[in-house]
């Protein structure tokens, strides 16, 4: 079983501040960690490998210091790590990021399952995982909370929904994004930490990817950030009081007027 786990290095959200001028994250002096949701993806990837034998490769796209996140993944039982890093990737939105990661994964080779965290703690988009599956043209299941069974060519999982869960079966290769209910990430082992320290991290740059350069980085990013602002706090609703009949009458009137003003 060849397993890939996609991770992202993010600022430690436990102590994060927003610049009131620009409304962006203050990244200076903030410790970087593996995106907490990706820890569950790493754990599930390693557990799947331990159950079925195989190989887990962690992939991240980011600046050179993202290597630290990859080494931490190795200390938890990941076998190999690939750092996708190039100035050409700067300014990538979720579309360009998932395209770049998909190209990197194709380059890495044969795979059966890709694990991602459900979203990143900094951007919160939850788009990159599904984006990778679309670029690779493989099925995806998001919000996976349990892997029920994996065979040589199929996997059956539980997908969390607001009301409960769905059981979904998919052919391999498949991409899963996982929620925190799926497991409890392990503490690294001493042998894992020692292995992580000396492990070779494979580096892939833009020219290694056989990618369409027009689709990379800022140029390949259709997202336009027009404005970043803090939404105003929600105002209290209007309370309708009186007897039941009176409230119903008032409500009907409000709805009619509201509809009229909207039209």
């Amino acid at each position: 079983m060849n397993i890939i786990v996609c991770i992202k290095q993010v600022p430690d959200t436990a102590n994060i501040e927003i610049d009131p001028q620009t409304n962006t994250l203050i990244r200076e002096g903030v410790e970087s960690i593996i995106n907490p949701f990706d820890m569950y993806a790493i754990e599930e990837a390693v557990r799947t490998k331990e159950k079925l034998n195989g190989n887990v490769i962690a992939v991240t796209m980011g600046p050179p210091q993202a290597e630290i996140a990859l080494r931490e993944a190795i200390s938890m039982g990941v076998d190999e790590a690939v750092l996708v890093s190039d100035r050409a990737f700067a300014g990538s939105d979720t579309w360009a990021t998932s395209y770049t990661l998909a190209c990197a994964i194709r380059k890495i080779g044969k795979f059966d399952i890709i694990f991602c965290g459900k979203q990143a703690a900094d951007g919160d988009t939850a788009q990159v995982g599904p984006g990778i599956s679309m670029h690779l043209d493989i099925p995806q299941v998001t919000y996976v909370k349990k892997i029920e069974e994996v065979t040589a060519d199929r996997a059956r999982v539980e997908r969390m929904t607001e009301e409960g869960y769905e059981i979904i079966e998919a052919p391999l290769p498949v991409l899963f994004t996982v929620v925190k209910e799926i497991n409890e990430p392990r503490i690294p082992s001493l042998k894992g930490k020692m292995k992580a320290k000396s492990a070779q991290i494979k580096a892939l740059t833009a020219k290694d990817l056989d990618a369409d350069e027009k689709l990379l980085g800022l140029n390949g990013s259709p997202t336009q950030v027009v404005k970043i602002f803090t939404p105003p706090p929600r105002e209290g609703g209007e309370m309708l009081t009186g007897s039941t009949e009176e409230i119903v009458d008032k409500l009907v009137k409000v709805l009619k007027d509201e509809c009229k003003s909207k039209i």
Partner: protein
Amino acid sequence: MSYLLTEEQKMIRDLARQIADEKIRPVAAEYDEKEEFPWPILKVIAESDLAGIYIEEAYGGMGGGVTELCIATEEFSKACGGIAVSYAASALGAYPIILYGSEDQKKKYLPDIAKGKKLAAFGLTEAGAGSDAGAVSTTAKKDGDYYILDGVKQWITNGGEAETYTVIAMTDKTKGSRGASAFIVEKGTPGFEFGKKEKKLGIRSSATRELIFTNCKIPKENLLGKEGLGFIVAMKTFDKSRPGIGAQAVGIAQGALDHALKYAKERVQFGKPISSFQGMQFMLADMGTQVEAARALVYLAAGLIDSGAKDISKLSAMSKLFASDVAMKVTTDAVQVFGGYGYMRDYPVEKYMRDAKITQIYEGTNQIQRSIIAVEMIKEMLRK
């Protein structure tokens, strides 16, 4: 403080600290209250490869020594002295095998202990034989290819939970302390049972039970070393294990000091944080200095032992004596810093004070440590 740790020792420290912060600290008070043995945490420690850091790689360990064991024990103890001793007492049970075991015995028993699949325990103390270890009355009678054990060991840490026990028993009572021998006894051997779990002042999550031997037949291959070596085995084991108690004491003291320092900064009286008052500052300064001095002595002793030095009894005893006295003093002062809150079980420091007390008593009372130190000092003087 770095103590010039190697890369690997730093990894052990960081890993043990992560386990202490994420797995032990949140549940320490609960285990103390329920007096429950911390198996789930020992499992995490085992999966992290820390169970056998002091055991040779050839027997499944990570190849470290007393220093590595002390580093991990100190970190665990900062969060809970009781959970830490359940870990460290397994090393106490394993050391007789490491020091005096035959190749076959090491191959048979050490790998499971190193992997954390089995815990070990050490049985010397009896109701009538505490500091006077020569008064051991448990007997081991040779009977063909077997020894027959009879007697009761008291207050054995990890008793009932461990699988592998190293036990001191008399093979020849007429020879006094030279008639004692050390044996390996496995849990489940017919005639080997456990007394009830003791209720204690501190380290309440750890298990303390009697080992009861009634006509307990063990194969003669379970003898460690030779007949008559029992007390040497015990003393050499303590020489190696005492810095571990010192490390436990340093961890307990540091843990209490960390709480006291944070509280002193937060607690406001007379319109100011109490940490701004000189009376409080002098107290905190003394606590910090004592802990640092104790730590220095513990790692000096551990380093000396790991260097392969022969004369280690004095420094080993000093490290246990000094660190445990510091732990008692510092944890008592930590309760004082907290004032009335410190006396309440809703706050963490009274537990550190309860946990600290045992470090002055077990693995030889601090009075016995002083005797050892004085005898060694006199011997050194006479050699000159």
